[in-house]
């Protein structure tokens, strides 16, 4: 026997045994984790866990329990999943009470999304300066409009129909512009809600000639009703278009009415999908409406 052979044999058999042991431990019979925790869930299940915990809070209003359920999870995941849930629910027009609960939970967990502000009582409406006794609003025949949604070059065809309804004297809401828009996209009602321009007294005294600018208003609830149903939306969900913007899909041959705050007091009714003029012998295509609703400064606070 050569002098080094026993040592080599021992080392070789240890290595061989190590390899066999690892194959058994990692492949044949790995540690079976059957008692895992939520933070080990796959990312989609983890987000589902967060959504369920949030809905659990909506159902039982137990904040401590919701926090305990979310405690093991990373804050990034919580923020991402809750934001998606709040925004999806807002877009679906879920009940305000549900939205308030979700928004409150999100706030408690340090999550913030613009859709929440509406339900947390954080007013997004700017407070216009109180009118001075000497202030006189400067009439503006063509009020400055908010920018339209980003679409292909629109053909804007002003039309006089239908006529905005006369609203009760106490109503702060008024349709100040209604325009047919032909963009080649699906028929929509695009509403821009803005505060009525107010001129500060100091400006007038100083002889300023600058036209007052209306301010887009977020957090205004709009209702679109038709004979068989209703839809609800809140301005402020698409701030990249305009903070006071909201849109509704329209269907052909259905008469719609638009209301603000409550569904029973329309500011606009008899609204139908308009037809854009035909070109090159093609049939007329459905168009959209662009409506501007002005809110007097005395409008009620947010819900």
């Amino acid at each position, binding site marked *: *026997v050569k002098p080094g*052979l*026993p040592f080599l*044999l*021992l*080392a*070789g*058999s*240890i*290595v*061989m*045994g*190590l*390899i*066999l*042991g*690892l*194959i*058994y*431990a*990692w492949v044949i019979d*790995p*540690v079976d*984790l*059957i*008692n*895992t*925790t*939520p933070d*080990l*869930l*796959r*990312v989609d*299940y983890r987000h*589902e*866990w967060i*959504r*369920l*915990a949030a*809905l*659990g809070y*909506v*159902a*039982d209003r137990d904040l401590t329990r919701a926090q305990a*359920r979310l405690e093991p999870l990373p804050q990034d995941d919580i923020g991402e999943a809750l934001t998606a849930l709040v925004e999806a629910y807002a877009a679906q027009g879920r009940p305000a009470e*549900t939205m308030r609960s979700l928004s409150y939970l999100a706030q408690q967990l340090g999550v913030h999304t613009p859709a929440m502000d509406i339900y947390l009582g954080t007013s997004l409406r700017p407070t216009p300066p109180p009118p001075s006794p000497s202030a006189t609003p400067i009439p503006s025949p063509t009020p400055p409009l908010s920018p339209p949604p980003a679409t292909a070059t629109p053909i804007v065809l002003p039309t006089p129909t239908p006529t905005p309804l006369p609203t009760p004297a106490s109503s702060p809401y008024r349709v100040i512009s209604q325009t047919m828009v032909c963009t080649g996209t699906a028929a929509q009602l695009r509403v821009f809600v803005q505060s009525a321009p107010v001129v500060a007294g100091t400006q007038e005294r100083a002889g300023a000639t600058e036209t007052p600018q209306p301010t887009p208003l977020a957090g205004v609830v709009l209702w679109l009703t038709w004979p068989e149903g209703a839809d609800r939306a809140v301005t402020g969900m698409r701030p990249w278009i305009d903070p006071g913007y909201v849109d509704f899909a329209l269907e052909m041959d259905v008469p719609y009415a638009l209301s603000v705050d409550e569904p029973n007091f329309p500011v606009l009714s008899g609204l139908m999908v308009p037809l854009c003029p035909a070109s090159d012998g093609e049939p007329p295509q459905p168009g959209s409406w662009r409506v501007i609703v002005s809110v007097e400064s005395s409008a009620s606070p947010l819900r």
Partner: protein
Amino acid sequence: MRKIPFLALIGLATGVALGLLVGWVVWRVEYTNTAPEQLRQDYRDDYILMVAAAYQVEGNLGAARDRLGLLDADDPAQPVVDLTERLIAAGGRPSDIEMLVDLADGLGAVTAPMVPYLEGSP
């Protein structure tokens, strides 16, 4: 010459022991993408309870069934039944039991202990 097989055996046994120690303890397989069915029992219970709560809020039975299917694909209602009966027996929170019974009712899996909750007189 007799020592050689003995040494090989000792070496192999030591190697296997080391391999198992490393594979099961030191560098064990890490599970980071687990599914709800692998959750610990208390988290599974919480999951079922949250599914019942989501059903209360959304009223979407299909979604509830899909979520429960991650725990028991063959019989999604069974985890609800098991948990409800356990909570009833243990005197759990009534509002939790009511949500679970409501879900069990939606899934067509009401059992005798749940009936009083459906009748409003537990």
